[in-house]
């Protein structure tokens, strides 16, 4: 039962490596983040494994620090999105009635506009800082989590075993924490992986457009923006962050897939 398939194991290892890299960026990065250590766009060498960037900073160092920013913002936004979305979704499912109606219609409204467009509108009025970015991304995305959490909780709360618990006279606390939550957790955790990927892509896109993380802070989207002109001279500096984003996203996806499969097989028990 508990044997981890190879794909999920690879996903776990790569994801873990990225997170460790983000946490210990200051320790493992060979140079300082803003330190100019060479010429413009030097090719890779024993001193600079990935070469240097558009003003001569070590690219590997930039990517390690950039990963820290990207992963930190994505993680924080995911946590915000998840707590807000699932708490409100559960409340809507359990209370029903007008509370559910008001919240659900509001979420419908927010989801009727693409998040990128909404984010652009908001960012035209306020300063993009790490905090505002996390809040904007987290809240915009929480609408999706809300829908999922509500749907899952509604599905579970009409189950006979929940009805049995209610007829036994159980209080709200027991019903939410002992009957609904344990059964809702795994689909939500799998979704969390997908939301995290989405956040990584979202923040990278914003930074690339120049309205996300602002210099001197570096993040993967920003590094692409800084180095994009190199591409026209055949210099691939901007592609390294691309590889970082893709591998991180794919490995998280593999893990999420595995969790989701494991849940669906546990759920029915009827094969």
């Amino acid at each position, binding site marked *: *039962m508990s044997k981890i398939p190879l794909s999920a194991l690879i996903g776990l290892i790569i994801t873990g490596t990225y997170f460790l890299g983000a946490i210990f960026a200051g320790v493992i990065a060979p140079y300082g983040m803003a330190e100019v250590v060479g010429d413009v766009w030097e090719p890779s060498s024993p001193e600079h494994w990935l070469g240097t960037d558009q003003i001569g900073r070590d690219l590997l160092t930039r990517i390690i620090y950039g990963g820290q920013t990207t992963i930190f913002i994505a993680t924080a936004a995911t946590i915000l999105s998840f707590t807000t979305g699932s708490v409100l979704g559960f409340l809507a499912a359990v209370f029903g009635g007008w509370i559910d109606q008001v919240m659900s219609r509001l979420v419908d409204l927010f989801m009727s506009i693409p998040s990128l467009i909404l984010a652009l509108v908001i960012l035209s009025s306020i300063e993009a800082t790490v905090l505002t970015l996390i809040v904007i991304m987290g809240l915009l995305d929480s609408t999706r989590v809300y829908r999922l959490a509500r749907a899952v909780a509604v599905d579970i709360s009409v189950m006979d075993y929940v009805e049995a618990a209610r007829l036994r006279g159980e209080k709200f606390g027991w019903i939410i924490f002992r009957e609904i939550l344990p059964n809702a957790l795994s689909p939500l955790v799998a979704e969390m992986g997908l939301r995290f990927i989405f956040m990584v892509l979202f923040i990278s896109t914003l930074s690339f457009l120049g309205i996300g993380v602002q210099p001197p802070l570096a993040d993967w989207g920003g590094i692409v923006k800084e180095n994009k002109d190199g591409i026209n001279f055949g210099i691939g500096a901007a592609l390294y962050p691309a590889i970082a984003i893709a591998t991180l996203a794919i490995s998280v996806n593999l893990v999420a897939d595995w969790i989701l499969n494991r849940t669906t097989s546990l759920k029915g028990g009827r094969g």
Partner: protein
Amino acid sequence: MSQPLVDIRNLKIGATVYPPGENPKKIEIVHGVSFTLEKGKVLGLIGESGAGKSTIGLATLGYGRGGVELTGGEVHVNGRDILAMSDRDLRKLRGPEVTYVAQSAAASFNPAKQIMEQVTEAAIKHKLCSKSEAEARAVELFRKLGLPNPETFGSRYPHQVSGGQLQRAMTALALCPQPDLVVFDEPTTALDVTTQIDVLKAIKDAIRDTGVAALYITHDLAVVAQVSDEIMVLRHGNMVEHGTTDQIINHPREEYTQALVSVRSIEHEEKAPTPEPVLKVEQITARYKGLNFDVLKDVNVELHPGQTLAVVGESGSGKSTLARVITGLLPPREGKINFAGRSLSSDFKGRTREDLRELQMIYQMADVAMNPRQTVGTIIGRPLEFYFGLKGAEKQKRIVELLDEIEMGEKFIDRYPAELSGGQKQRVCIARALAAKPKMIICDEVTSALDPLVADGILKLLLELQKIEDVAYLFITHDLATVRAIADSIAVMYQGEVVRYGPKSQVLAPPFDDYTDLLLSSVPEMKLGWLEDVIAHRKMESAGN
């Protein structure tokens, strides 16, 4: 002897299963079954779920459903081995020679096309006849199968006709290309009992009139006894017994067949009413939110301590709604409920913990009545803790006692519901209800999702527990055989009203009102020729028409 229509020798069927978190595995689900079927004869294939009967039926069409493969043996139809056929040849077999009637006609008809087009499609596409001939055939079949307005019936869409009618139309679909063999796969199982009898009769007549051979697959021995010449009993992918219908029903040789034949022969002596009923339902009228009609109309029933009141009716009769009203999940518009000498709040939220404890409920689908993330011990232990404050060793001791009472034992205490069989799950639900030491338990179709022998075991257990615990049952069911087995008094419901109510001996004795007569007579009996007798003596047309 001439060549048989179907000749199956040592058929083996395998399937690929996908166990959670492991690599896919191949398993064998039919282990070498052999039989022959002559032209124009009907063979009944009977067995419980997992016996492999549908798989064998589909094998005569050379078809395996999702991951099922015919792995060995021979399947000859009209002298040719199906397993050796190309896809092209198989397509020529399906339709002109063999056709299939599925359990759920509602799902098996294409929702986007008119019935006529679907019924005639096989005959036209295989160039068996012209379009107009095929349509004439279809109309004739609609007439023969007793469908209303046979001339225009075909122009309707599947969702525009009732379930019973669609099942007949499916039979017409199978007969239209004039095949040699029709495989009927539980064609009446999804229907109400009074509808089932008519569809069954229509199918039987159609088989007789067209002279087609049939494989009739079902789990209900009494049903198959009415239509087949021979019966084959299957279990776990093996043949148990094969004989003429008369031999299987009247002189079964194998122990398993004997058990199937004698199922529902539980004897239960009726108890006299007591002066003080435990439950008194008075003038209950109820409707669901958003509906503009009453689902229950002026319902009055009583249940006496330690006795069983059976509430019988077909789908839509309001019997399950009555359960929801009594439990307080659906507060009625009018009327009141008296329980154990006190008046019950109409909403369960207004009831005391004592009220809730003394009135327990067991559900139809044990699968979803238990939290899949809780162990058997937790499931049974929670009421003990919640109502009686039992903890630790004391609680443990009581859980084991309850597990013994339901004949399962201590070893199940740490199992999860997914690890239990259907019957075991229902037993755990019974133990959970008993743990509250209730005065009364509502049993909502508790045996209808179970195989007959397993259901029998559950009924016996319930009767046994009634003696020990002196608990009263409000038993909701559509199955009159169950009612006969366990009831002390009976309420017959029809379209939201109680049409007949009283002690079992009176309710089941003539003179009957029309509906009760129809209902009683529609329950298939384990004897030959029953179907014809019933149809000949009926007073009322069934509700499904």
